[in-house]
């Protein structure tokens, strides 16, 4: 198993596999609703002006997440 990093540290253009969510409550459910379950492949696409938020490809959709949320998603670098 590769090293676990928070999603917002995933460099644009690279992919990661969701390993664990550290968010709780409503925020966690929202992430799950986006399809971010264990094993989901996520690609970091593009940083915005100041590097936050970042656009990710998640299950065919492009979703922008702020670093507060992305930091609660641990991914394994692919």
């Amino acid at each position: 198993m590769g090293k676990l990093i928070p999603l917002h540290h995933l460099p644009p253009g690279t992919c990661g596999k969701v390993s664990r969510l550290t968010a709780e409550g409503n925020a966690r459910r929202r992430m799950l609703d986006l399809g971010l379950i264990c094993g989901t492949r996520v690609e970091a696409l593009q940083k915005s002006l100041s590097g936050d938020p970042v656009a990710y490809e998640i299950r065919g959709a492009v979703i922008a997440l702020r670093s507060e949320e992305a930091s609660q998603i641990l991914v394994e670098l692919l």
Partner: protein
Amino acid sequence: MGLRQVSSQEMAKQTYRIDCHEEDLVIALAGNPNTGKSTVFNSLTGLKQHTGNWPGKTVTNAKGKYIHQQRSFILVDLPGTYSLFANSVDEEVARDFICSGEPKVTVVVTDATCLERNLNLVLQVMEITDNAVLCVNLLDEARRKKIQVDLPALSEILGVPVVGTNARDGVGLRELKDAVYQVAMGEVINKPLQVRYGDPVETCLEMLEPFVKGIVDKNINSRWVALRLLEANRDTDNWPLQFPFLKLNNDSEILATLQAADRLLLQAGLNRDALRDHIVTCIVKQAEEIAQRVLSCEKQHYNIVDRRIDSVLTSKVWGIPVMIALLGLVFWITIKGANYPSQVLATGLFWVENKLTGLFMAAGWPDWLHGILILGMYRTMAWVVSVMLPPMAIFFPLFTLLEDLGYLPRIAFNLDNFFKKACAHGKQALTMCMGFGCNAAGVISCRIIDSPRERLIAIITNNFVPCNGRFPTLIALATIFIAGGRGEAGQTLVASLSILAMIVLGVVITLLVSKILSKTILKGMPSSFALELPPYRRPQIGRIIVRSLYDRTLFVLSRAIIVAAPAGMITWAFANITSGDISILQHSAKLLDPLAHLLGMDGFILMAFMLGLPANEIVLPILIMCYMSAGQMIELDSLQALRDLFAANGWTWLTAVCMMLFSLNHFPCGTTLLTIKKETQSMKWPLITFAVTTATGIVLCFIVAQSARLLGLA
């Protein structure tokens, strides 16, 4: 703040009280945001609900009717949601309506280019109701991206009818109506696929279901209710669960069974949070599995074009400059294009005025009647039409084009960090964009923001973007005072740049005020933010033009005229009823003069803003009438004449700038204030909005006017 409580239950009740005959069949339309749901709705019902390429567009819930095979169907457009777990007001509203048993059939609209994520919602809807129909929309976009969807196989797997559509071009709608009809009439019996949750969840469900069956309506899926009971948090105020169909009065048998189920789940390591995770994971996995079976994609990188466009439009370097340039271009085209038709309209309408005056003279009607009807009512309306119509007719289609292409979420993406620093929600940028059309619509669109605190901030600050009622004022003043005296090309350019500067200023003020609100009366941190950047779509030029002319331009214009007519009459009366030597109007203006002077304006301008409370559109016409009644009766058929009129009343560039600033920053119009009251269910927030916006304008104008005078610039 009390927003949330009001919103869910009350809103569901208010919005979905379906007034229909018994023989009408109620159909719910559900779907993820941005799947073309509104387009499906419009195509089926012929209603022109506004649609746009950004998530969360359906903010006011629409109902429409269509007839198929001699039966009438009432179609209810639910808010777009990703799931039905009631994480937000919208989800709660959608879920409550589907499970209320009211809709005969629930149609789930999905995006063929993003089917896997959409299936998540489909599976959840199928848990609540057997009577679901799946509509796979945007097939043409999928074809363009070389994505194939095996519709028969999908229908086979899901156990419900599946119809492929291309709602924009009307493809597949007949089949959709047929499928809905068959399910509604019981000609087709669905056997919807049920997501399995494995042991011990399934065992618990079996334990609970018999009891649940006893207390819920037979239309409601007892398995689904049992599942919700299992995952509900019984320690919070939300217990017992309140569904429209279910009032659980701490029924002892059910409670005992639930406790037994809890023990079973805990043994398997499933506490409340883990159970919820497990449920969602099972659904997502099921969706993934189905997608793998029915989707085939020829091109691996089918989104490559979108990615390339995004790499410019949302890039660190180009994102903001491109955004400002695009907006500037829109204003340039608007001002340039509106110039000539405005003059033609003005000339035409004042020619009619002369003819009407001639008629009055010939008929020998009294002067006061001529004054109130022609000089008051007609003239104000003529001004509203000639000043407002051309810019709106150009600006709206252009703006709708940007919206249709899918550019607005990119604006939100680019600006998000600023909003985060202001402790506000990223989607506030979207509500801000809606404010360009109409602030009342902008306030309603704030429903896409879940957090009550951030929603209130977005509502209060929405007025800092100029609506179309204020644009013509800004354009006229910028053209004649700031850009005046240059060649025609230079004039248009400078005017566009001035308007652009005003908008940027409006955004900066929005951010500053949001920040101040976040640190004072609406304390808090920014909440979570996930924004979908939908695929770019081919714009529908024809529809854009029709839609923006009918829905927006004519709607706004007619509202303005309706308000302008009585306002014109009243203003004329005030201007001509004298007390002592001068009219009531002049008395009041004199009273306001000292304050107005401090703000770089005069008493008439302030009064025009006050009289313009019903609608911002009439501020300029009222002002013109005020000045004209004070003596000079001139033919006003060009911007030059307007400039002369203002100059004769002591205007300088500073007066124009201050009026523009005050136009951008003053109390919202009556409609917007009423909308705020409705949206927040309290008188407090419209009053606060009134105070915040007006105070901003007063402070700003005071600083500008006093500094300019101190520096000897004016």
